């Protein structure tokens, strides 16, 4: 009887997960094919990995919303393994690599059994970023040529980077018709991918960008095939080939090199990257979970290990947790592991039913998707962001990036760790602090008997070297409690720790807990970035930046003097109460700026930088919001314009509250909330008439305050004035209630 309720809930959520799994499979198909091709493996290998991952991890895994499949981080290591072990024969190299993949699955499983998930904490954040950027550059360098229609460019990443201008020159100087077609498909696809996030149309956004690229390019191929009657307009080297009979043509992994040192080297680096990519993704997806669940990392690693073993056996790539696909899952309403399963199921359907159409996908289109992926991994924005944290972080980042490109991935990350350590030693002007205290316990955590707060004190130093000790303690604090982390006994806190603590702070505030960091006032940071390294010895005063105001900001300032409100243009990252609004459940708030606040603190108008989705499915948004405190308690509800997307959501279980008496309102607005009775009595005739007769805004109540948003972009001064007038009138009606 006790079990019945969750099962019913599971069944109720099933339509949502089927839908979400379907959308995810639309992005998983092109990515799976592309990632396999980028690794010089048969295209089907990526799909096999996604299917094995989806089925196994959804059953055995320990996370809730993650999607598993072939990962972009692995492209470079698998590629070097296939090329390196094949010695000229790529197919033989692929068979050896399959054996390495199976073995890495076993290692992954063992990692999970011995609960070694925490090992990933030893990697400094910035070095990891550098490694990911290097992977991005690697993918981009190789695929750029393919995107332009040249598949014959060989060499390592740096050679291929250098050859990019000559490929462009080739294209311009010597254009044959099929090269022009290929490069046109590739370049247009790339442009489309860059512009996709700008188009805010809910129907259009339903299909992920990579799938649009695939559909459009298949369309172009059919146009040449059927209408222009020129089949095979692009050479076979620019088309995907799938085996005719999937089951008959299964490759068998070749364990012949198992005792070679390079085999073991490849296996280890595949495992290392698989663990890092999976754990980073699991952590990131947990932060997007609207139900705020915590993933069981070690259980997930075990499942990924089994899935990787199975995938390798059937000729597939490594199975890892992937962030972009997972975020698409979250955004489309997936709420349990079954979405992962359905994504795999839909892939099976695609492969069985549309094998012929899939083979019409031109390589340049897939290469464009990969170039975009690579660019997102290696975007210069990352370097700027890291530079803002501190110059020393930029040095670490570049060291790792260059070292990874010049040598191999494992050497690169090791050098990155070394660089980080060196930077820390230089900053402290000695390594004694680290060498003397590294192995000693340094964290004290206890529940204060008087206050009921959890108090955590950290001694000596806290950096990537010993962050796992602090994490182990923090993980034991229920996130709805009040935690205080005290660094006053700690002489040095590094960027990895500051960023990690920020994650904790977020997850605590998501669950209505409090997470306070104290004792850093005596420490000094080199930059004003919240994640900058902190050191207890005073060094030099920071520079004061005087930012000049933009025109819009000047107008806002003027508005603030007219209204006699306070205006603060600087970004602030204090947004605790915002995360309690339903709107931000699956979104990631960066900071708010241009704050305009009334003197009695009832009105707060601000621009907010936030993002939706992650990695290649990420969309950065900036919108203007108005938050007002209402005089009376209200039911919790959201009110939105009714459109195609809300109709789809209704199909998958979210209910719209309609009023028979007010057909116009019911048709135009999508109203939902838990306490339907209270909402119905709250929406009086007067209030409904008010909404009918005014411009529509997105409106949400969290009980005692209202959040109003006009468009998914910044509002102009004119629109802000309208919004304020709207809010004032609305407040008047609410006051009279």
């Amino acid at each position, binding site marked *: 009887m006790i079990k019945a309720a969750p099962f019913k809930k599971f069944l109720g959520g099933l339509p949502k997960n089927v839908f979400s799994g379907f959308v995810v499979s639309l992005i998983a198909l092109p990515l799976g094919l592309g990632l396999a091709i980028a690794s010089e493996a048969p295209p089907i290998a990526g799909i096999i990995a996604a299917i094995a991952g989806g089925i196994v991890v959804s059953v055995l895994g*320990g996370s809730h919303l993650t999607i598993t499949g072939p990962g972009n981080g692995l492209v470079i290591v698998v590629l070097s393994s296939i090329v390196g072990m094949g010695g000229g024969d790529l197919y033989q190299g692929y068979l050896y690599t399959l054996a390495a993949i199976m073995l890495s699955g076993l290692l992954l499983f063992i990692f999970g059994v011995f*609960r070694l998930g925490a090992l990933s904490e030893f990697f400094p954040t910035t070095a990891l970023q550098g490694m990911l950027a290097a992977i991005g550059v690697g993918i981009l360098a190789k695929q750029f040529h393919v995107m332009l229609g040249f598949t014959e460019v060989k060499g390592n990443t740096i050679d291929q980077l250098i050859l990019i201008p000559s490929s462009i020159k080739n294209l311009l100087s010597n254009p044959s018709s099929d090269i022009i077609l290929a490069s046109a498909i590739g370049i247009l696809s790339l442009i489309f991918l860059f512009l996709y996030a700008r188009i805010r149309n809910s129907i259009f956004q339903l299909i992920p960008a990579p799938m649009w690229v695939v559909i459009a390019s298949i369309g172009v191929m059919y146009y040449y095939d059927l209408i222009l009657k020129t089949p095979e307009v692009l050479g076979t080297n620019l088309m995907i080939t799938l085996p005719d009979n999937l089951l008959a043509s299964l490759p068998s992994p070749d364990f012949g090199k198992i005792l070679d040192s390079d085999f073991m080297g490849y296996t280890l680096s595949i495992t290392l990257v698989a663990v890092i990519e999976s754990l980073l993704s699991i952590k990131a997806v947990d932060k997007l979970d609207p139900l705020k*669940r*915590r*993933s*069981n*990392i*070690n*259980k997930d690693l075990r499942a990924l290990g089994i899935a990787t073993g199975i995938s390798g056996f059937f000729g597939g790539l490594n199975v890892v947790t992937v962030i972009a696909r997972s975020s698409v899952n979250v955004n489309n309403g997936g709420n349990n592991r079954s979405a992962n399963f359905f994504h795999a199921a839909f892939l099976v359907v695609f492969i069985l039913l549309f094998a012929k159409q899939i083979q019409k996908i031109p390589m340049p289109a897939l290469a464009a998707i990969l170039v975009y992926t690579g660019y997102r991994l290696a975007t210069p924005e990352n370097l700027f962001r890291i530079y803002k944290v501190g110059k020393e972080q930029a040095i670490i980042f570049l060291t790792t990036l260059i070292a990874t490109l010049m040598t191999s991935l494992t050497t690169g990350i090791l050098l990155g760790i070394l660089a980080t350590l060196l930077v820390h030693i230089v900053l402290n002007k000695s390594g004694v602090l680290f*060498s*003397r205290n590294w192995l*000693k*316990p340094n*964290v*004290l*955590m*206890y*529940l*204060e*008997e*008087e206050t009921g707060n959890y*108090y955590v*004190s950290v*001694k000596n130093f806290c950096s990537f070297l010993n962050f796992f000790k602090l994490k182990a*303690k923090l*993980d*034991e604090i*229920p996130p709805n409690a009040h935690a205080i982390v*005290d660094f006053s*006994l700690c002489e040095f806190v590094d960027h990895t720790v500051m960023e990690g603590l920020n994650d904790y702070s977020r997850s605590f505030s998501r669950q209505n807990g409090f997470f306070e960091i104290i004792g850093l006032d005596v420490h000094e940071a080199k930059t004003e970035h919240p994640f900058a390294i902190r050191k207890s010895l005073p060094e030099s005063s920071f520079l004061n930046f005087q930012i000049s105001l933009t025109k819009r900001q000047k107008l806002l300032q003027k508005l603030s003097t007219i209204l006699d409100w306070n205006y603060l243009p600087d970004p602030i990252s204090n947004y605790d109460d915002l995360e309690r609004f339903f709107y931000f459940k699956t979104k990631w708030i960066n900071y708010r700026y241009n704050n305009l606040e009334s003197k009695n603190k009832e009105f707060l108008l601000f621009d907010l930088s936030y993002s939706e989705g992650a990695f290649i499915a990420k969309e950065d948004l900036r919108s203007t919001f108005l938050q007002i405190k209402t005089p009376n308690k209200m039911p919790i509800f959201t009110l939105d314009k009714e459109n195609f997307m809300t109709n789809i959501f209704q199909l998958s279980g979210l209910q719209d509250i309609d009023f028979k008496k007010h057909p116009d309102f019911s048709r135009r607005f999508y109203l939902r909330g838990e306490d339907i009775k209270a909402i119905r009595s709250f929406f009086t005739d007067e209030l409904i008439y008010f909404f009918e007769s005014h411009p529509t805004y997105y409106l949400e109540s969290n009980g005692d305050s209202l959040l109003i948003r006009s468009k998914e972009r910044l509002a102009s001064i004119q629109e802000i004035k309208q919004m304020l007038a709207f809010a004032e009138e609305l407040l008047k009606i609410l006051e009279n209630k």
Partner: protein
Amino acid sequence: MSLIAFKKILVGFAFSPNLKANVFESLRMAHFFGGELIFVHAGSKTPEKETRFKEIVASSPVQSEKIMIEWRVGSPVNTLLQASQEFDVDLILLGALKRENVLKFYLGSIARKITRKAKCSVLLLINPSVERRPCQHIVVNGFDSPQTKDTIRASFMVAKALGSKKISLVEEISRSKVAVAVDDDRSLRRATLKKEKLRRQEHTRVKDVVKKLPAELTSDINWITQSIFGRRGYSIGHYAKVVRADLLVMNAQENLSFVDRLITRDIEHILAELPTDVLIINSKGDD
């Protein structure tokens, strides 16, 4: 239960810059505990040394009735340990350096060796001073061990003698006792419940110990209990530092083997980094 009283106090001294502070502090302690004081110097006796030492003793505002000065030749560790047994002292006073190197830890400093081998209680002073610093807050270990009762009793006695108003009894509970690994929300809930239960058990146990003490010891002292899940010996030191305790009272360690010293544990954590003045109670010698 044996009664702990510090009637005979042994102080080793050397002619270091800290000498004056050490002597003043010792005289003060002897005064508080109402005991006799035995100063021992490991080194030859010369007239200059003697007059200098006596001058320092005479300059102290607090004086003690019974002072003995012993001059012995030999290694400091053995001399002091021998003297402590010879005179059957209750307490050895040692001035400690605030920080010692990792290397020294393995070689063993004089103070550490004496602390490990002493058959009586040992008071380690991190910061002896000429002026008196009041001892306001005492932190005491309260973990489940036969010695703990004596230690708690002794700390209340010390608190009375030094005029401390607050005692925190800290129960260190080993993480392994919880026996639930936190992986996800469900295991976190289980672990939290388990900890709550352990915490309550420990509280009751420690409270019972305190309640059994004579009322004149516990009256007008504000005592609280605090349980900590963490490495035994380490956590209490860190705690003492966090709450800015003036004195940390701990059990002496039973049978320290070589292995014990290799894997830093219990009292060794404290000796490696003294958070504050530390009193190590050894009740065996007092039977």
